[in-house]
């Protein structure tokens, strides 16, 4: 009883003996020092630029650019500002990165699973793919796609036409562009409806499996719906989707969607190169799941696809996601190699052309670096969130 009443000395909140307080002070000091260093560097830069008579500041972003860009996702002309050039470049970078990442994931997962296939030929082909592509420098691969493949295509006048309306030539790929007629909303409405029904079926199926143990094949039915419903709407409304015809006039094609070869080469190069790394990550992830897990699942009577879906994939994802994140970040950063093949990405048009026309290297490079930093941080925090979803939940 006596011992209980004897209180330990009250910890001093703001004393040096409090480790928490000490920690805060240390952190504050580090931040202060860092801030001072940055401030000194910035002040030095501004002072020196001023002394050398070099323009500084961000006013140039409002000046008209005066040059044209071959590919832009927003309306852009020579009268647009340097700020618009920045947005054009950023969007072009993002476009390549997003399409590249999707393609790389599809190819990577396919090849990774193929390497584990029981079929000798399939496994060997996948192995050759991985070993070839991941051991050749990316820049060379970009040149291969750009100069070796796309430049070797015929001239516009003698374009290849693999499908009616599709043209491939050394100026890129021309596709007929779709445009909607009246009744198109029925078509897109049908797609949305099919998706909604699919989502509903999923909930119902899961609940029923939990309550009764019966399996309901909701995926097959949803896919069927997704094909049939829009098809019915399409036919009933008399094919409301038209395609703009592409015609060769003068030196180039008119109409349609024009994919420039720089874009095609960069996307293909980045996707196939990154896919070879993703394939290895996927293979190692699947192989990391102990053989016993598969055997146990079989012993419980799970089918092959159930084993894959409920046992193998969830466990292998924990191994796959962290290295996958760094591959996605790599792809985004590698997209800056665009400058070598003339694709107008952020580095090429902003850190290249704008830098040269304005001469404001410090500002332009700082903005560009900040953009890549922010993009990488966003991507890695998204992957971090995704990882926690797949992490082991202890019960």
């Amino acid at each position, binding site marked *: 009883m006596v011992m209980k009443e004897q209180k330990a000395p009250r910890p001093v909140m703001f004393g*040096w003996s409090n480790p928490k307080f000490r920690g805060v002070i240390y952190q504050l000091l580090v931040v202060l020092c860092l801030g001072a260093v940055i401030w000194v560097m910035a*002040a030095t830069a501004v*002072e020196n630029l001023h002394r050398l008579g070099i323009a500084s500041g961000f006013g140039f972003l409002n000046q008209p650019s005066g040059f044209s860009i071959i590919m832009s996702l927003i309306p852009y002309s020579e009268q647009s500002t340097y700020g618009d050039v920045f947005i054009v470049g950023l969007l072009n970078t993002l476009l390549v990165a997003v399409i590249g990442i999707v393609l790389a994931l599809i190819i990577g997962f396919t090849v990774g699973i193929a390497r584990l296939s029981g079929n000798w030929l399939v496994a060997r082909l996948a192995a050759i793919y991985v070993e070839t592509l991941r051991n050749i420098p990316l820049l060379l691969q970009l040149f291969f796609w750009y*100069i070796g493949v796309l*430049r070797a295509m015929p001239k516009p006048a003698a374009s290849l036409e693999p499908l009616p309306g599709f043209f491939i030539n050394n100026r890129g790929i021309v596709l007929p562009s779709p445009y909607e007629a009246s009744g198109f909303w029925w078509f897109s409405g049908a797609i949305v409806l099919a998706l909604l029904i699919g989502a509903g079926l999923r909930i119902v199926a899961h609940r029923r499996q939990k309550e009764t143990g019966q399996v309901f094949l909701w995926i097959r039915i949803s896919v069927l719906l997704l094909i049939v419903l829009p098809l019915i709407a399409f036919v009933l409304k008399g094919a409301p989707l038209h395609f703009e015809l592409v015609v060769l006039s003068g030196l180039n094609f008119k109409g349609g969607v024009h994919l*420039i070869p720089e874009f095609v080469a960069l996307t293909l190069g980045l996707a196939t190169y990154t896919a070879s790394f993703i394939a290895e990550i996927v293979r190692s992830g699947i192989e990391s799941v102990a053989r016993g897990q598969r055997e146990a699942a079989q012993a419980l009577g799970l089918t092959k696809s159930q084993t894959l879906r409920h046992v193998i994939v969830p466990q292998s994802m924990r191994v796959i996601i962290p290295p996958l994140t760094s591959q996605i970040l790599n792809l985004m950063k590698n997209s800056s190699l665009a400058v070598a093949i003339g694709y107008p990405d952020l580095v090429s048009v902003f850190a290249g052309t704008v830098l040269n026309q304005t001469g404001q*290297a410090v500002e332009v490079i700082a903005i560009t670096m900040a953009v890549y930093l922010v993009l990488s941080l966003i991507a890695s925090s998204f992957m971090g969130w995704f990882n926690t979803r797949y992490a082991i939940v202890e019960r």
Partner: protein
Amino acid sequence: MRNRFTVLIIGILIGAALIYFLRPNPPGWEAAQTGASSSIVSVTTPTATAPAATGAATATAAADSTLAAVKARGYLKCGVSQGLPGFSNADDKGQWAGIDVDTCRAIAAAIFGDISKIRYSPLSAKERFTALQSGEIDVLTRNTTLTLTRDTSLGFDFTAVNYFDGQGFLVKKESGITDAAGLNGATICLQTGTTTELNVADYFRTRNMTYQIVAFDRNDETLSAYEQGRCDALTTDASGLYAERLELKDPSAHIILPELISKEPLAVAVRQGDDQWEDVVRWSFYAMLDAEEFGLTSANVDDAKSTPSPEVRRFLGLDSNFGSMLGLSNDWAYNVVKLVGNYGEIFERNVGKESQLGIPRGLNAQWKRGGLMYGMPIR
């Protein structure tokens, strides 16, 4: 614990003191000093309080005089292009040749009396300005168009124009295009970061013609893209087109369109604010122009030493001290002509009759022959 804390505090104090003493003078510092009192103005840095700062200030002062720095270093650093025949191009032995290279040699000849004391930096269009701004090179003798923006916002001064050029187009003969109007709807290859990008935009826009630009970072990529049919036309300065046509597999299958769509005075640039260095660079080039006007060549300049002509004697430094006014030796102009030649010589051997390019003198002829090359009087 307490011990570590003390060490940390002392460390931070030392760090803060270092930052304070080594910090550059903030903008407006000098103005504040001027406002205080005239007696303080002469004392730029109070020595007693900050010895470190005095050292820094002296170093800046020495670096500010480019001529002194070049002399002390023993060689000149010139920025040239990565390979443009006739202007600056390294041959198979690694020897640089071209008008821009000879312009650089003239400066070295004027300073050292020796044209081997040069280090060349091959620069892309994109790299050239930063290289000059940062002091990586002393002088930019790389085909660079003089414009108002570049003169004002980059911290440069342009000295002399060593070649008057204009922008043109190169097309394949088989395309059937014979003039610039035929380029409507064309795809055009060019090198990024140049004035050509802006000129093309202006030209096509004022004529309501459509076009597409494919911009590459390097010259050779631009050329191969054009040759392999990525573009209908290649555009750059006309002199560059003559040079690049030679590098194509079949030069005769390509023509240069007659229109020149811009003025491109290619000038030699130095950093702003070093007037002495600017003078040295400018007059080294004028010496070549004046030599051509006087009829002095690298072959006859030695004989000319016995001439009675007062202006030639002044030029050669026999009866004058112009060299010392520039901070050079008095035979600076003699060295330029003897070691490099006059402007006519360097033009003909690099881009003119004696070269493969065969470009006519045109605007680059002497003023007495209808050109724009006008050597300023040395007196």
